[in-house]
């Protein structure tokens, strides 16, 4: 074997003549992507991923078989190679039937590894579960209690009977962890010497602070309020999220070495430009703390409260004078919080005024239900026409009766006034909760949207100002749910991290494979209903601010977590296909078409085969034949319908299979799973 020199992507490397380009590159630490190659086996050439351009050759070569020769010049990153490689990956993905990650995680704005932590909870390893959760959510006990859980709405278990109680299981694990002797504490990387200012200590700011601190940066969080937590602290009522729980979580964050500076309002007692000068990067995460106006006569009267102000007052321990009869305007979660809080502040008659019907109300179903149970009267299809006062004080509210018309651009039916139809309700106060606005004053020349929110580039969290980033309710489209703010905080942290290291950053979507399923895919799963969470009786709970829910018992929580169907792929972390798909930024949906429709799962003593994820690389076939000498696996059929199947002497697998598991170990995707 003579020593030869070849050039791969401009780098000169050495190898032995007669060896393949792929092997020589690998020996020199250059990975040429491939899905059907193994050094132990003969080259096969199926995947079409290891392509390269060879100087002087019009055709692309497969580096897994091309013999290297002295002076050979290879390029694996030309446009032509990238195109052909991406196409191969896109084609494989178009024929790949499987979920890389479960729909729970995909639909969680923060992409929390739900399947991962549920498994830990099912196993009784709560702190390990929290470790997984905190990779995305640093305040799980709080978020778990109040999250409207898009994860549950998309949980596949709903196709069996009911979705898992994902959100609360998160709170359960976090509570257990907080109560434990050694709660989970993340490792902090070496101090970077970089300083980051986070303006706003709500879910977005806290998430970013947590993540940046872990990376070793020095982080200071400024907040206008006396305590951290933002809307979780001052917007969400105590009966939904006990402040003690939130405090434990913010304390844990502070303990990581983050400096909390409360009662600091930018533009009032602190100058934005000073902060910019003092810190290497700044995150604006000030939330949306202003209420939208109803815009009807009488809104200036004494006894008209903004929902956010009202809730904040109550959450700071003051009970505003709302009287015995209260009207709450709005159909969202803030309206529900306001009406239920009003009851707890001593109101006897509480009305919710909402111009559409219950079906259109954006509030959580359970919130509406619980409010009704507590005695709130819902006046759907009504809209305040005028707030009638007497001596400058609210006396009644005149309601315009509405009806639903044509659907508008958002798809919701537009409420239309019914001409001449009104009713009047006598009330002592009116609480408005029809939307939140951001007050972004004091941030100098930071560019705002027409809505008055901070304009943020959603690809990288950046604002128009150098080193200034933004996240949460204060940006772009405005207020949303807390987990959205957490997700944006995470994104901003990544962007800031990259910025501090002088690296470019762009958020990208994983090229995940997703299954399309229906009830019939789950017909054989044994039904096991969702654990019922006990709540305090309505009559009892409406008088106090105590937490409404009683939580899960230990057994309930373990049982509930065990209901997880584990939709996500077991091989996700090691799958070469998704890695290359991501690296090549492929468009998974580009070549959408029918899939190879072979779904039989067949066991090979202790291996389950998922044909949907098989891409016919043939590694299992070849390892069984070439390395083990058994040859139990073979290709079946031809063309698009080709499949890999085992075939045994006289149909008896036990005699043939050595149970060596080599096939499962060599599988580059999750098509073969070892069953323990």
């Amino acid at each position, binding site marked *: 074997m003579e020593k030869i020199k070849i050039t791969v992507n401009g780098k000169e490397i050495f190898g032995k003549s007669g060896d393949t380009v792929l092997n020589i590159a690998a020996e020199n630490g250059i990975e040429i992507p491939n899905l059907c190659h193994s050094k132990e086996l003969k080259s096969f050439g199926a995947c*079409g991923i290891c392509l390269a351009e060879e100087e002087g050759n019009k055709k692309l070569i497969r580096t897994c*078989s091309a013999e290297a020769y002295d002076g050979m010049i290879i390029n694996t990153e030309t446009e032509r190679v990238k195109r*052909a490689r991406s196409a*191969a990956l896109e084609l494989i993905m178009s024929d790949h039937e499987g979920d890389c990650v479960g729909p729970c995680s995909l639909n969680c704005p923060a992409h929390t590894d739900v399947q991962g932590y549920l498994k830990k909870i099912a196993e009784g390893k709560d702190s390990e579960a929290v470790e997984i959760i905190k990779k995305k959510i640093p305040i799980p006990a709080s978020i778990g209690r109040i999250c409207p859980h898009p994860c549950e709405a998309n949980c596949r278990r709903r196709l069996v009977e009911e979705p898992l109680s994902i959100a609360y299981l998160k709170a359960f694990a976090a509570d257990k962890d907080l109560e434990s002797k050694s709660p989970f504490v993340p490792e902090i990387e070496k101090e970077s010497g970089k300083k980051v200012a986070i303006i706003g200590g709500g879910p977005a700011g806290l998430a970013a602070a947590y993540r940046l601190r872990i990376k070793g940066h020095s982080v200071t969080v400024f907040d206008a309020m006396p305590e951290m937590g933002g809307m979780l602290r001052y917007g969400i009522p105590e009966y939904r999220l006990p402040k003690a729980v939130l405090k434990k979580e913010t304390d844990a964050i502070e303990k990581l070495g983050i400096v909390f500076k409360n009662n600091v309002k930018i533009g009032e007692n602190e100058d934005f430009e000073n902060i910019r000068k003092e810190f290497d990067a700044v995150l604006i995460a000030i939330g949306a703390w202003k209420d939208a106006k109803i815009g009807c006569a009488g809104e200036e009267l004494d006894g008209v409260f903004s929902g956010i102000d009202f809730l904040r007052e109550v959450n700071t321990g003051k009970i505003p004078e709302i009287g015995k009869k209260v009207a709450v305007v709005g159909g969202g979660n803030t309206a529900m919080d306001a009406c239920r809080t009003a009851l707890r502040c001593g109101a006897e008659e509480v009305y919710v005024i909402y111009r559409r019907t219950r079906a259109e109300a954006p509030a959580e179903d359970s919130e509406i239900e619980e409010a009704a149970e507590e005695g709130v009267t819902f006046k759907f299809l009504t809209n305040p026409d005028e707030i009638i006062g007497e001596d400058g004080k609210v006396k009644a509210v005149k309601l315009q009766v509405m009806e639903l018309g044509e659907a508008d651009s958002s798809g919701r039916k537009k409420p239309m006034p019914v001409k001449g139809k009104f009713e009047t309700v006598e009330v002592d106060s009116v609480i408005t909760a029809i939307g939140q606005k951001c007050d972004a004053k004091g941030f100098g020349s930071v560019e705002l949207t027409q809505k008055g929110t901070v304009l943020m580039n959603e690809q990288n969290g950046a604002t128009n100002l150098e080193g200034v980033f933004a996240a949460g309710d204060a940006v772009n489209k405005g207020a949303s749910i807390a987990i959205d703010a957490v997700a944006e905080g995470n994104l901003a942290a990544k962007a800031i991290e990259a910025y501090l290291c002088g690296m470019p950053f762009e958020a990208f979507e994983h090229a995940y494979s997703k299954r399309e399923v229906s009830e019939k895919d789950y017909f054989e799963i044994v039904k096991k209903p969702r654990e019922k969470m006990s709540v305090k009786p309505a009559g009892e709970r409406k008088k106090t601010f105590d937490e409404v829910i009683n939580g899960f018992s230990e057994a309930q929580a373990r049982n509930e977590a065990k209901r997880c169907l584990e939709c996500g792929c077991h091989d996700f972390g090691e799958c070469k296909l998704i890695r290359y798909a991501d690296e090549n930024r492929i468009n998974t949906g580009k070549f959408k078409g029918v899939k190879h429709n072979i779904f039989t799962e067949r066991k090979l003593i202790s291996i389950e085969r998922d044909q949907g994820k098989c891409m016919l690389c043939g590694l299992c076939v070849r390892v069984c034949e070439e390395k083990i000498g058994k040859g139990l696996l073979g*290709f079946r059929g*031809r063309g698009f319908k080709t499949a890999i199947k085992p075939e045994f002497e006289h149909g008896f697998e036990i005699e043939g299979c050595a149970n060596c598991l080599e096939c499962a170990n060599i599988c580059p995707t999750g098509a073969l799973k070892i069953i323990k």
Partner: protein
Amino acid sequence: MRIIIGEGSCGIAAGALKVHKALEKAAEGKNIRIGITGCVGMCFLEPIVDIYDEEKLVKRLVKVSENDAQRIVCAAEKNDYSDIDDLVISKEDEEFLSLQTRIALRNCGITDPTAIDDYQKRGGYKALEKALSMSPEEVIEEIKASGLAGRGGAGFPTWYKWSAARKSESKTKYLICNADEGDPGAFMDRAVIESDPHALIEGMLIGAYAIGAAEMIVYVRAEYPLAIKRLEKAIKDAKEAGFIGENILESGFSCKMRIKSGAGAFVCGEETALIESLEGKRGMPRLKPPFPAQSGFKDEPSNINNVETFANVAWIIANGGKEFSKLGTENSKGTKVFALTGKVRKSGLVEVPMGMTLRDVIYKIGGGIKNGKKFKAVQLGGPSGGCIPEELLDTVIDYKALSETGAIMGSGGMVIMDEDTCMVGMSKFFLDFTAEESCGKCVHCRIGTKRMQEILTRMVNGEGREDDVLLLEELCKAIKDGALCGLGQTAPNPVLTTLKYFREEYDEHIFEHRCRAKECTELLTYSIDAEKCRGCTLCAKKCPAKAIEGEVKKPHIIDKEKCIRCGACSKVCRFGAVVVE
């Protein structure tokens, strides 16, 4: 007198065996010998019967039926043909042959394929004798001088392959003949084997001698039972005559020969897949390198050529490479056989010198388009080739010139299309074929051709999407670059050429839901022209969907919702009142 019946597969399909039987019966007790020959090449005139006086062709009779047997025998007996004037080939049709230059097909339709002495009478096995007197290197030199290139499609110089195999060191080299002719619309190789199997054997023997092969294998398509039968007989006869076996013609050169029947897989026409199949495996192409010349069948050096290539070899050795190279163009020497089919008036086997224009082949030899229709395109190279439009009909038959159009020379399929052929439908037809025949090994071909097929199916069903053409183009490029073997790499060609020359048809399908050839039924609408309709009620009776209503003697109406676009009404209407759009 001899009466010879053309009994190639075509002739037999047209009824040659019945004619043969009838002639034998009619000739019973008469001094007339009934014999057979292979394919004359004039498929459009089958069954064909030739009357010979000794070696001289006296009359060629066409479209003969068994009922003609009696009068044919009588005429031959009397040597007076006035009675069968109606059967005699026309002057015009004779041109079909007279305009050709036949080398590979030199004996087709003349000799009896089952008789080795017939072949020898026409100089058969003399070239082998000559070759054996030369050194293998000299033989290769002669082939080099001829400029012969692989007739299977790719056009790789034959001498180069032979020389590479010659240089590979091994005691057991193989010479393989690829007779897995799979292109839909191609039957040149079948005709050669059925009509002149010894030409193939002799060519192979010369090749085997040149490379030093110990065994010759012919891999024949399973669908060619007659070819296999005749080749088996020819091999047996050649063995008995001492042309195959030990110490051939006392030269010291020994070589065995056998046939291997394929089992139905187009991809086995790809040489490495063919080798896998020979080894009894699934016909999935191997990676190259190593090339077959280094490591092929049973990992031994193997040389693979196509039938037509071998059929030229004996002629070249006998007449000299120079003589062969006088025919053709700068880049392409000799002749090429085509299977001329489709909407052409005269279909059949055509062998012409390289350099002839497509127009001459189609119009002069093929007689132009059937039924007075307008020419639209000529498809060359089957699923690996492309469609050439009218404006390029003056392109000459030449490897380079043809590939510049986007099509390829191919193995010889030449299908003519007229205005009634939908080019999108044509693309779909070929992709249906390649997707079906893809071996399934590599991603680009297995999934890529499937996706192309899906997109084209959408288009012909009127469900094409705005960006489908872009998507198709992207797939084409990727598959060409990424597929493992020739089948995959060339699969996009039919689509690429139609996109290049007939793009407007794609756009019409996608944006206007219109098929100008009126072939895509999903895109058609049927209606009745009230002015022409006489109210005969025939269409209403024939309509399987009961979609036509109307009173007797009053114009009828088609309910477009119910109409299944089967075209039955249009076929039965005697007044041309059904309008198809």
